[in-house]
């Protein structure tokens, strides 16, 4: 990482630290203060959007570890989220567990399901693994629909809002705080997991599987670990989503979301924790923009009024991914680094 002029790393600890200078600490602090005071000056509508973005960020962090760092491409992430979400809903509603006990179980369950569908990953990769994870999505949803005695099937299941003592996270603002605290923790964990031995093993597997194996990386163990970790994040996100809506239903986890999470990773930048955040935020905002602009366009061109919202959403989503793949395959995170470097060096360009 480029440092401001005059700052030098003199020890290993300094070399490894994420926030190196006081300015960086200050900016982090400012961002956190802004984030946690935002219920004061934003409307409920924006808080809802931010809550959903927070949940998405958690999920995309998981996908980033799995796909961005370990190169095990997964288009079944919404399925793993569903596994977590329904576990939590079943534990809370059918067995009367508190949310705080159900959340770790949901994460664990999603992780185990992830390991199950990650099992073929030792033998297959690339397109084949994509097919296996697509299959995973449909099989998980099918299981949820089949065991309707437990999961409620197509009608779903109530999922009560979490509570501490007599305090229930009922208002938008309180749930916003819950999601944001967990999202910040998830970001912290995601950033640091990839700096451990396991994270370096993931990167070795991504860059060259055979070479990693020759170096002594246990491919099987680390690939399954990547699946487990990635799906644990998905499970947490799924549980949060379900309890946010107060209802768990298979419709909350459509196949298209699985694809869209991968799209977020591409737009944000693969293999970068910042990228996962950038991608989730920017594409969710884009969705919101389409929802706002759709009716306006429909008003101008009445011929397409009926289907404008649905089709424009699809077309913009597709086009954004196409444009990023062609012009900025390394995503917004790379752009962000370039902008930072530019301002660090300004006014001297070299």
């Amino acid at each position, binding site marked *: 990482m480029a440092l401001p002029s005059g700052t030098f790393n003199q020890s290993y600890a300094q070399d490894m630290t994420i926030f190196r200078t006081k300015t960086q600490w200050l900016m982090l602090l400012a961002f956190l203060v802004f984030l946690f005071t935002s219920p004061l000056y934003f409307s409920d509508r924006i808080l809802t959007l931010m809550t959903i973005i927070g949940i998405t960020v958690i999920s995309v962090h998981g996908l980033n570890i799995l796909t961005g760092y370990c190169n095990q491409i997964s288009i079944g992430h919404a399925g793993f989220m569903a596994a977590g979400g329904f576990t939590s809903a079943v534990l809370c509603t059918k067995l009367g567990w508190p949310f705080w006990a159900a959340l770790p179980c949901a994460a664990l369950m999603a992780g185990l399901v992830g390991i199950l569908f990650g099992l073929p990953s030792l033998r297959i990769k690339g397109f084949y693994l994509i097919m296996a994870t697509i299959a995973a999505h449909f099989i998980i949803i099918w299981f949820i629909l089949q065991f309707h005695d437990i999961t409620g099937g197509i009608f779903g299941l109530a999922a009560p809002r979490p509570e501490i003592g007599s305090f229930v996270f009922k208002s938008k603002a309180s749930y916003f705080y819950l999601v944001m605290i967990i999202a910040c923790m998830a970001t912290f964990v995601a950033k640091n997991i990839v700096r451990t031995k396991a994270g370096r093993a993931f990167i070795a597997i991504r860059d060259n599987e055979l070479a990693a194996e020759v170096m002594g990386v246990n491919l099987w163990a680390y690939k399954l670990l990547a699946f487990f970790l990635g799906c644990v994040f998905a499970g947490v996100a799924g549980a949060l989503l379900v309890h946010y809506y107060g209802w768990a239903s298979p419709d909350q986890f459509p196949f298209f979301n699985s694809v869209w999470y991968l799209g977020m990773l*591409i737009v944000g930048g693969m293999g970068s924790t910042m990228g996962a955040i950038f991608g989730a935020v920017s594409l969710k905002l884009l969705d919101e923009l389409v929802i706002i602009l759709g009716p306006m366009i429909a008003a101008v061109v009445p011929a397409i009024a009926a*289907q404008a919202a649905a089709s424009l959403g*699809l077309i913009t989503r597709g086009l954004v991914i*196409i444009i990023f793949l062609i012009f900025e395959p390394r995503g917004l995170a790379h752009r962000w680094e370039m902008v930072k470097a530019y301002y660090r060096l300004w006014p001297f360009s070299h």
Partner: protein
Amino acid sequence: MTFFLQLVISGFSLGMVYALIAIGFVIILKCSKAFNIAQGHFVMIGGYLGFTFLVTFHLPVWASLLAAIAVAIVMGLLIERLTLRPLVGQPVLAVIMMTIALATVLEGLATLIWGGEYKTYHGLLPTITLKIGELSIPPSTLIGIMVSIVTVAILMIFFRYTKRGLAMRATAEDEQVVQSAGIKVTTVYALSWVIACVVGVISGILLGGVSGVQIILANVGLKAFAVVLLGGINSIGGAIIAGMILGILENVAAGYLDPLLPAGGGLADVFPFIIIIIVLVFRPHGLFGLAEIERI
């Protein structure tokens, strides 16, 4: 027994749909090593084009077919030139995401233009229903079989005996060697996308004429990947045989096992995906595909 045979026959016609989608997929894969998730969407677009030309413009069948093929050629060329060519040399994920994005755009366009409704043009195409005893063979089966056989025959001759076909196979083998032999790789890529589009659109028109067309038709494309994997991803013949096997298996499994399942089944929707997992675990290169050998 009649129930079983009827299941087999309707499964067979379903298998033909799978096989037609799988063929288009295999052609692109054979030439440019690109995994085309959007193949099912080509079929859907084809169905809607058939509706436009046959019903909206009242064109005769032959003219509609030609017009649809013309559109397919343009579509294939545009897709290859605008979206796939910039990605040459990029990792597998980029190409797959590109075709997924393409699929999304095509779905959006179809919704925009045709309203995403169920359209049908029964009776404009010849529909023949064979009756053997108590069994009735639906027209989709017959048309499916005919089109598949003709398509496969043409493609086999093309890939085996024509210069262009040989060039395409050689490109799949090794791009650089082919370039040094004076073959233009970009033309080969463009041609493969055009062929896949045309095959997709033709099968879409036929399917639409038999059972109508709707956006859901594109989702058949996802299931058709089970066929591709089972048959081996680089074998056209394998795609057809696997298509039949899978269509029949899916229908028979759904027919017999659905009543036993708690929520009334829906097994037909996931059966191909279960097959995908099984094939991937036990025989990743499929029934007729070539096993990949990896070198450092």
